[in-house]
C-alpha cells in the first residue's frame, strides 16, 4: 500500500536518473574489475586498500538506507534522543578500529569472521555464529532491496517491482564484474554523493524554515520530541549503540575490510570513518523536526526524510534524494553481496563441501554465489512482506549477543567456547523475550547484557588459556597463490 497520494517526481525523470547511475556503476565495476583474476584480488581487493579508500568504504557502507530513512524516522518518533541515539552507531565503527588492527595481525591470511570463530571457539560455536550472521546478512539484503523498491516508487511512481529489480540487478552486476575492488571504488564516489546531498538538504531546510520556527512548531504540536526525559528515548540510546556494535563486530562486511586493508590502515580507517559518520544521522534526523513547521502529512514514518527534502527543495530536492538513496542503497548492497558471498564460499562451501577446492574454482563459485544471493534476495523482496523492517530490528537481539564472544575472543585468552556458545544462545533468547515484552528499543541491550554475563562467567570458571598462534591458519587458499 502506498499511503502517499502522488509521487513527487515524474516517472520519466526517475528512469533517467536510474539509467544514468546504473551505467556509471556498471562501467566502474567493469573498469576496476579488470585484472581481478586471482581470488584475493576478487574478494579482498588484493589486501592492499589504503587509508582514503578504506575510510570512504567503511563510512559509505555504514550509510545505508537505514541512515537516510531511519534516522529521520527515529527523530520523528523519539525526538532529540532518536537522532542522537542513531548517531551513536558511529561508536561501533570507532570501537572496531582496534579490533581491525588486531584481526589483521592475528589472521593475516584470514577471509571471514567465520574463520575466526571456528579457530577460536570450535565448530559448535562457529555454526551457531554462521546461522546468526547469515540470517542477519539476508535480512539486511532483503530490507535494502525492499527499501529501494518502496523509495523509488514513492519518489517517482515507478512500480515497486521495477525499482527493486533495477537496484538489485545493478548492484549484482557491478559486484560480479569488479569484485571487492569495484565495491570499494564505487563506495568512495557514493560516500561523496551522500555527504554533499545531505549537507545541501540540511542547510536549505534550516534556511528555508528557520530554527526558531522549527523549534516552536515542534514544542506546540509534538512536545515530547524535545523532552530529554522521554523514557523510550532514554532506553533507546544504549540499545542502538549496542545494536550498532553488534552489527559491526560480528558481520563479515567489516571483517572482510579488515582483511582487505593494508597493514596499519584498519585502525585509522575505522576511527576516521566513525568520526565522519557520526554527524550524518544528526543532520539527516534534524530535517524530520521540520515536519510540524512545514505542516506536512507523513503517512509512513520512514518516508519523513525524503518527503521533507522534496517539500523544501521541490523537484530538484526529490532528484537529489533519489541520487542519495540510490547511492546509499548501492553502497550497502554491494558490500553485503561481496562479504556474504565470501562467507558462504569460505565457511559453507569450502569448509563443509569441497575442502580441496582450488583458488580458481573458488573464484568462479564466488561469482555464482553473488548471482545466487541476488536472485534469492529478489525472490524474498518480491512479495513485499511489510514486516521485514521489523525483522531487521528483531535481529538486534541476535547480533548484540555476539559482541562479547567476538571482543573477548580477540582480546582475552581465557574466553572459552562454553561462554561464547551460551552467550550467543541465551543472549539471543533474552533479547527476543524483551523485544516482545517491552519493545524493539531494548532487544539489543538485553541481548548484549546477558551475553556479556555468560562470557564473563565462562572466563571465571574456565582455566585454559588460548594460544593466539592457532589463529594464524595456513589455509588452502594462500594469498598470492595462482588462481
Amino acid at each position, binding site marked *: 500500500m502506498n499511503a502517499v*497520494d502522488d509521487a513527487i517526481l515524474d516517472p520519466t525523470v526517475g528512469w533517467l536518473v536510474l539509467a544514468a547511475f546504473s551505467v556509471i556503476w556498471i562501467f566502474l565495476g567493469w573498469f576496476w574489475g579488470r585484472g581481478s583474476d586471482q581470488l584475493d584480488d576478487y574478494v579482498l581487493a588484493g589486501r592492499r586498500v589504503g587509508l582514503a579508500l578504506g575510510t570512504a568504504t567503511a563510512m559509505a557502507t555504514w550509510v545505508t538506507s537505514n541512515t537516510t530513512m531511519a534516522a529521520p524516522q527515529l527523530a*520523528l518518533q523519539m525526538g532529540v534522543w532518536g537522532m542522537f541515539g542513531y548517531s551513536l552507531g558511529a561508536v561501533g565503527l570507532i570501537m572496531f578500529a582496534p579490533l581491525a588492527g588486531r584481526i589483521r595481525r592475528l589472521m593475516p591470511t584470514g577471509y571471514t569472521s567465520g574463520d575466526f570463530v571456528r579457530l577460536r571457539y570450535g565448530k559448535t560455536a562457529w555454526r551457531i555464529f554462521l546461522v546468526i550472521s547469515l540470517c542477519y546478512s539476508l535480512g539486511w539484503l532483503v530490507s535494502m532491496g525492499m527499501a529501494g523498491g518502496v523509495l523509488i516508487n514513492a519518489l517517482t511512481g515507478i512500480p515497486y517491482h521495477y525499482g527493486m529489480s533495477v537496484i538489485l540487478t545493478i548492484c549484482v552486476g557491478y559486484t560480479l564484474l569488479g569484485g571487492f575492488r569495484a565495491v570499494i571504488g564505487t563506495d568512495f564516489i557514493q560516500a561523496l554523493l551522500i555527504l554533499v546531498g545531505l549537507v545541501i538538504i540540511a542547510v536549505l531546510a534550516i534556511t528555508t524554515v528557520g530554527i526558531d520556527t522549527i523549534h516552536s512548531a515542534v514544542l506546540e*504540536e509534538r512536545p515530547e520530541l524535545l523532552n530529554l526525559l522521554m523514557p*523510550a528515548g532514554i532506553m533507546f540510546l544504549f*540499545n542502538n549503540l549496542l545494536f550498532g556494535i553488534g552489527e559491526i563486530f560480528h558481520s563479515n562486511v567489516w571483517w572482510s575490510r579488515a582483511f582487505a586493508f593494508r597493514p596499519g590502515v584498519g585502525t585509522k580507517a575505522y576511527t576516521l570513518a566513525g568520526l565522519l559518520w557520526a554527524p550524518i544521522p544528526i543532520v539527516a534526523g534534524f530535517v524530520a523536526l521540520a515536519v510540524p513547521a512545514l505542516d506536512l502529512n507523513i503517512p509512513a514514518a520512514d518516508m*519523513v526524510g525524503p518527503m521533507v527534502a522534496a517539500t523544501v527543495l521541490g523537484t530538484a530536492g526529490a532528484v537529489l534524494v533519489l541520487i542519495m538513496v540510490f547511492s546509499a542503497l548501492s553502497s550497502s548492497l554491494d558490500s553485503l553481496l561481496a562479504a556474504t558471498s565470501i562467507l558462504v564460499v569460505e565457511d559453507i562451501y569450502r569448509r563443509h563441501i569441497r575442502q580441496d577446492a582450488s583458488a580458481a574454482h573458488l573464484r568462479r563459485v564466488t561469482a555464482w554465489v553473488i548471482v545466487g544471493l541476488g536472485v534469492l534476495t529478489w525472490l524474498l523482496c518480491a512479495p513485499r512482506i511489510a514486516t521485514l523492517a521489523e525483522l531487521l530490528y528483531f535481529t538486534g537481539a541476535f547480533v548484540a549477543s555476539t559482541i562479547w564472544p567476538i571482543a573477548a575472543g580477540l*582480546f582475552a585468552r581465557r574466553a572459552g567456547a562454553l561462554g561464547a556458545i551460551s552467550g550467543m544462545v541465551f543472549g539471543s533468547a533474552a533479547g527476543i523475550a524483551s523485544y516482545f515484552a517491552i519493545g524493539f528499543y531494548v532487544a539489543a541491550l538485553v541481548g548484549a547484557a546477558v551475553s556479556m554475563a555468560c562470557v564473563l562467567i565462562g572466563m571465571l570458571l574456565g582455566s585454559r588459556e588460548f594460544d*593466539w598462534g592457532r589463529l594464524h591458519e595456513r589455509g588452502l587458499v594462500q594469498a598470492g597463490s595462482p588462481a
Partner: protein
Amino acid sequence: MPDPGPAPRVRPVAAALAVLALTMSPGAQAATLEADQYASSEGFYQLRWEAEEPVRLVEARSPGFVDAETLYTGSDSAHVVSGKPDGSFYYRLESAEGGQVLSEPVMVTVRHHSLGRALAFFAIGAIVFVSTLGLIAFSSSGSDERR
C-alpha cells in the same frame, strides 16, 4: 439476578442516544479508521484509513470531540502521530468539505514507560558499554598476542 427496576427508564434514553449517534455519524460505513496500536508506551503511532473521498482527520482530547483540531486534510490514507504526552486521544475522519463525520471514532491511550524503568535500562546499557570499552582498551594497551 439483575435488578429489572431501572431498565424501563434507561431504555428510552439509550435508544435516543443510539439514534443521535447514528444521526451524527451517517457515514459510519463511508470510511474506516484504525491505529497500528491503541496503547502506546512511546507516544508515537500511525493512523490509517480507507475512504472514497478526500478526508479531514481530526484529533480531540475528549470523546465528544468538542475540542477537535484538524491534523490533516487531503487524499493520503495514513498519518503518523508522534511526540504525544500521557493521556487519551480521540480521532475520527470527517469529509474534507463539509465536516460530515465519516468514520467511527478511534481512541489511543499514551502511557510512557516510567522514568525509573528507563533509567534502569540506561544503566544496564552503560555498564555493558563501559565493560566492552574497558576490555578492548586495557587488552589493546597490554596486547599479549606475542606471548
